[in-house]
């Protein structure tokens, strides 16, 4: 099959690849570019493990064709830490013991980031709503909800 060029920024740096038409963004990120932070679990849009942020919106990379991302700004969990310092959400997930096998974690963090970018001080209900597209087998969710609420508090204290 003919290859098509695709160009976007990933966590701020320019990426250009030739990919086969029909390649998912998940496949392009993991197997072409080597960003392993988005996870592939269901590959059908039901688990949220592959979540990334495209132009500020939460998207499922397993259902997004890479060729539709030309010119887009893509963010993944791999790009959250700055200069070796973890993002407040990553810190909060660690501190709250909100990760066990870790397979859901990058997707959860992406979903939480989009929520906090828009709603810096969310209610518990808003956090639950934001995470409701993401499945976790291990934690029972409560530690994840607490981590997101803690990260929100840390953010607002820094802002104040």
């Amino acid at each position, binding site marked *: 099959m003919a290859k098509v060029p695709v160009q976007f920024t990933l966590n701020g740096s320019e990426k250009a690849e030739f990919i086969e038409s029909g390649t998912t963004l998940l496949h392009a990120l993991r197997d072409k570019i080597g960003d392993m932070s988005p996870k592939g679990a*269901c590959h059908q849009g039901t688990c949220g493990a592959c979540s990334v942020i495209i132009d500020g919106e939460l998207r499922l990379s397993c259902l997004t064709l890479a060729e539709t991302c030309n010119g887009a700004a893509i963010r993944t969990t791999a790009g959250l830490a700055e200069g070796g310092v973890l993002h407040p959400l990553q810190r909060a997930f660690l501190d709250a*013991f909100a990760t*066990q*096998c870790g397979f859901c974690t990058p997707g959860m963090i992406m979903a939480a980031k989009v929520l906090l970018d828009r709603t810096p001080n969310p209610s518990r209900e808003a956090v*639950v709503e934001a995470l409701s597209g993401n*499945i976790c087998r*291990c934690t029972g969710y*409560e530690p994840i909800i607490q981590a997101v609420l803690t990260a929100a508090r840390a953010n607002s204290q820094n802002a104040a």
Partner: protein
Amino acid sequence: MAIRRGRGVAAINYPTGMNLGGDPTQALVHSTPTGNFMVTLSSVDLGQGMKQIMAQICAETIGVPTDRVVVDTADTDTGPHCMGTFASRGTHRAGNAVIQAAKEARQVMLEVAAEELEVNASDLETDGKGNIQVKGAPQKSISIFDVALSAHFKRGRSISGRGMFLIPRSYPEKETGAMKPSTCYAHACTVAEVEVDDETGEVTVLTVKNVFEIGRALNPKMVEQQLVGGSWMGISHALYETTEPYYPNRDHGGTDFNQYLMPGPGDLAQTEIIVLERPSADGPFGAKGPGEMCANPQIPAIANAVFDAVGVRIDTLPITPERILRALKAQAAG
């Protein structure tokens, strides 16, 4: 037709390990030239924290800080043998093997230190911070870093140890059939409160209060995270999860995990966890296996709570709305 409330209680004991052809796990421990310690295992860390716990156990036994230990797991081609991560056996079996291996490595380490300090190995102790010192005279000491360098480059010693923990196979007694399928037992008790809609058959779990007795909690925060997740999973097993069709016709059954029901973050019961520690006699530092046990007592507790609420006994899992409605119908037909 009404929403009815019920409360149920259940208690379980849960075996650590299993009895097939014997239940062995082996471990190897060795020092690097700079005095870090490597634990080699075939046991798998799938998120329960095996690596952290084995690092703690090795560090405690050798007498070094935990961050001086690296755990290499789960290459069954090249690692020492392990029966596997199942039957809540990981901490107990692998932990005992690591203790044995670490003891042997510690002994070699002390012997090399004794040669360097020109004292008797039995007069030496570790300070837990990376040094070895003479008992009662801590000013006479040597760093484990220097001991490892000496072992590697001067004295030609391998600071290493082998560990093997085996629970031999237990055969049933001819007369009674009795046997000992496992070693120590963990225990748990759950009280669940539910609401059952007797018109739709839907069950909402309001609260689950759990007490777990797990031997010694080697890492209390990790024990807690496993118990919280397990308690949720118990509810999920009780009410949702099945590979069978939710309704009788096979065509309506799930075909993959996308149709395998699990509660999401919006369906959480108020959960309480209490941990009791009764150290086991044969566990590493008194530990038992909390792994699978933590998702068990919620299931009978919820079944009992459903009985308390609407008076029907559901003995097939999961406790679906359909099963409750059929049972209610049968009860009414009397």
